[in-house]
Structure formats: C-alpha cells, structure tokens
C-alpha cells in the first residue's frame, strides 16, 4: 500500500470536536466534509484533494471516541494521516474504517504545507519528495495492515464470514 500526495500540516492536540463540529455530527457526510478541520485551517475543507496527506503533531484526534472524525477525514479523500502520536481511540478508529494512520515522532519537523510526500504504509517509510528527506514511521502490526487491505474491520469481518 502506497500513498502520495500534498501535505497539509496541523498542530498538536487537535480534538475530534474540531475535526467534526459537534453540531454537525448528525449531518450527512457531504455536509460534514465541507467543514472538516475548518477552525484549524479554513482552506483545508475547500482545497483538499483526493490523495492528499494530513500531518499533525502529537495526540491527534483526542476527545470523543466516535469514529465519525476518522470517517470524515476519509470522506475528504485524504490518503493517510501521519502524526507524531494519536489519541488511542482515533488510532483504532483509523484502522477500523480502513484509513491508514502512521505514527512518526519526527514528522512535523521535516515537512511543510504543500510538499509532496510518498508513504509506504506497510513499511512506514516516508519520503518528502520536495526536499528529499526520508523518515521512518513506527511499524504497524501485520494484522492491522490486513485490516487496511480489506478496507476496515467490518469489511474484513464480511470477507471472513463469506469465506467461512
């Protein structure tokens, strides 16, 4: 699994409440995506393109455990999220819905908005094409990679149910 796209960089401790506004959680995703992360960067929901990569500081996705925040990120077309660290519910929810999330403690120091990143999800190798800088994310356990390949936990369970 590979991802390649423009980098959108965000800060530390971004709560799910800022990824998806609390008053929008019951709205359709077509509406939610127009506001994703808007209070952190108003340009993001307007200009994010399929394949783009979100980079964040530490503890991305803190606050609520609802998977809607991870889902909303997926609906923007973002191909993966790399953060210095994640809130554990967000990390789990990423795999659950089939959105690659990688932890790389050095990431924010070596990438900037608009730079092109290439990410090998399986090995965790990250290349900043714009600067040539290479980085290594923490490895993802193999069964979580399987889950991603299947398209998420439920897709995987469906597949297993089909086989069984």
């Amino acid at each position: 699994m590979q991802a390649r796209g423009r980098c959108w960089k965000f800060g530390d401790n971004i709560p799910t409440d800022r990824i998806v506004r609390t008053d929008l959680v019951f709205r359709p995703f077509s509406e939610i995506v127009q506001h994703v992360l808007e209070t952190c960067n108003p340009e993001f929901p307007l200009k994010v393109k399929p394949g783009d990569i979100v980079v964040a500081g530490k503890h991305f996705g803190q606050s609520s455990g609802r998977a809607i925040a991870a889902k909303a990120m997926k609906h923007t077309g973002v191909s993966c999220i790399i953060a210095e660290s994640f809130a554990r519910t967000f990390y789990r929810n990423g795999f659950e819905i089939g959105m690659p999330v990688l932890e790389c403690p050095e990431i924010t120091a070596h990438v900037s908005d608009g730079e092109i990143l290439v990410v090998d999800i399986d090995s965790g190798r990250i290349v900043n094409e714009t600067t040539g800088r290479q980085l290594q994310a923490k490895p993802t356990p193999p069964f979580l990679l399987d889950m991603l390949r299947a398209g998420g936990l439920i897709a995987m369970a469906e597949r297993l149910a089909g086989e069984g």
Partner: protein
Amino acid sequence: MGRAFAEKVLARAAGLSEVRLGEIVDVYPDLYMSHMASWRCIRTLEKLGTDKLYDPDRIAMVMDHISPARTAKIADDQRLCREFAARRGIKKFYDVNAGIAHVVLMEEGHIRPAMVVIGTDSHSTIYGALGALGTGVGFSEITAAWVTGKLWMKVPESIKVVIQGPLARGTSSKDVMLKLIGDLTADGATYCSVEFHGSYTEGLSISDRMTLCNLAMEVGAKNAVVCSDEVTRTYLAERGVPPDRYTEIHPDPDAVYVKSVTVDARSLAPQIACPHAVDNVKPIDQVAGTKVNQVFIGSCANAKYEDLVEAAKILKGRKVAAGVRLLVSPASKEIVQRTVKDGTYSILLEAGALITNPGCSACAGDGGVMADGEVTLSTANRNFQGRMGSYNAEIYLGSPVVAAATAIRGVITDPREFLP
C-alpha cells in the same frame, strides 16, 4: 518482576497466564456497552448478515447522549435499539429515562472488579472506579465483539499516580484531577493504564473514584483504576452483588511503572480548566471574577448524588445571580430519586436551577448550548471549542462547589467564600 493491574487483567481476559508489555492480545471483554451509537452497531450487524451473537448477556445498551429523542430520525434509531433488545433477549437494555450509561451500569451492579469493559465512549475509563478495566472503542469494534466476543488490545505500560490526602478545604476529586491533567498535559498518559494510589484513595467513595477514573481520559489514558477494596465490596453488596460473584485483581507490590507522579491534595486550591483545552489549568484565583452566562452541573464526571448534595449545600437559601442560567442534569434516575427524597432537589429548584431529565444533556450538546460570545462554567470533563453550541463560546471546567458559588455570584467564584 511484578505486574501492574492492566497486565494482570488483560492476561485473565485473554485466557493467558501472562502477557508482555506491548504485546497485542485477543481479549474477551466481559461487557460491551453502547449508548446512542447502538443503532449504528445494529445496522452494521445487519450488514454483516449474521444473526449470531457471542453472548447477549455481555451486551449493555443505554439510550443516553440524546434523550429523549430530539428528532424523528433519533426516535427511529432509538426504536431500532429497543426492538432489537427485545427481540434478541438483551436484558441490560436501559431506555431514555435511565441516565448516563456509565453511571447507570455501575448503579445496576453490572460492573465488577477485574472485568474488562469496552464501550462506545471514550470515558469508559470510569469503570476503573470499581476495579475494572474500562476503555473506549468505536462502534464497529463493538459490533465485531457482539459477534466474535473478542477484541485486539495492546498490553499498556502503567503510570502510578500517588495522591496524598486529606484534601484541602473547598476542593474535591475534580480539583485533584484538574491539577493532574494540567501537570501531565492532555497526552501525558496516552496508551497507558493509570493506577491511582496514595492516602487520598484509601476509603475514598465510589463517587469520587468515578470522577478520578473518568477524567483520566483527559490525559489520554487507555484505562484508569482505583483498585477494589472494602469500599468497592460494600458498594457492590448494596447493589445486590455479593463478593462470590466476582474476583479481584490488584497490582503486584513490586509492579513496574513507566512513570510515577504525585499530587499533593493537602495544599491544593480549587482548580479551573480554562478555554479551550482541558490541560489549560489554573488555580481559581487567576480566573475568579470572569463573568459567566451559564453554569452547568452535569456529566458522568460530576453529576452524581454526592456532587449535587455538595452543590446544594452552597446553594441552600441562596439564589442564582440575575441573568445567569443554572442547568442541573443529574446523571441517573436513581440520583433524581435520592435528591427528591432528601430535599436536595427542592433546594436546587428554589435557588433557581433548571433541572433537566437525567442524561448527558448539555455535555453532549443536547440542550443547554451557548450563543456566540457566551461563557459557561461546567462540571463536565471537556471544554473544547464547539462542544456546547457556538464555536465562539467559552467553557471553563470546575468542581460542583465552584459551579454553585459561580452561579450565585455570576462570576467565577472561589467556593471557600461560602464554606464554614
């Protein structure tokens, strides 16, 4: 080498004699809680096309967060849950009249020491108040657990928090936790199991233990625990759960902790978490005098019986300041009953409170939201922007007595002014 609480409990729930730190294990949780998200679990189950449930007795559903229904869509979702529970023989189903899931499940005796409990809610850490390991997961994971009975978990490192008591005047478990969150920061315990130790925790009420374990989520903890003891056994016995119905698990005396922190509760001042981060914590004198439009006494962190009684002691015979709204949302039906019986309910009403039905209420943005530019002092556990209405509103977090004192003055007020 000694093992900490989480290592021992996860080994038990995984059916292994031992687990290693960082190891990923398949755990069989003892209880799967889902709240309003239950309908999503049911829809996902339908999508999976299976009728099989691993163990309906491990499923608990509580219709909190938005209760009663606010829209036809929510009413429909709740009906789906109600009918599913009836059809599938789910006995631990609690409807919109029950209150906040976390508190209801403990009051009903469903949470016991050494259990692993997963919930569709990040504050599932609260179950550590009864010596259980509680943690939050997404709704698809709950659905998968309904069917397979299991869930992957990484064996966490543990952090030891030593709280030295007794408490200073005018402070409570809330102030202890806000101080800890300010010191450790919002990600200070990410992926870790937090164990509370120290003289303050000895003999501490279950209500206060709930506040500790609930707020541990705000340092990013995977779970949090005050280990079971005589207080736990008494609480459970009062709820019809005798000691032979559960086992207890305690950390080894020589358990290894990745970090140890101490909070000296003896010299603590009331603490306030300021907008817009739970770890933006200041002693009350630095924010006293800040004007508020609303005071909210609610949430699974601080709307328990004891919290309402403490607030009522200050509000008794006094009035909420003109122009200020005091919203009280008791955590459960049982709490409403107790406050009605002992007169606490009338004290709050007479002071000018609007008392809502039990549930998450304003904490989940379900009523009681703020207009642009407004300020709330809340006893809940989060103050992120947009959590209670307008993005241009501010939330300060404090204890129930701070809330009561603030409601009377209309500005953030040190509760010690009102204490003997």
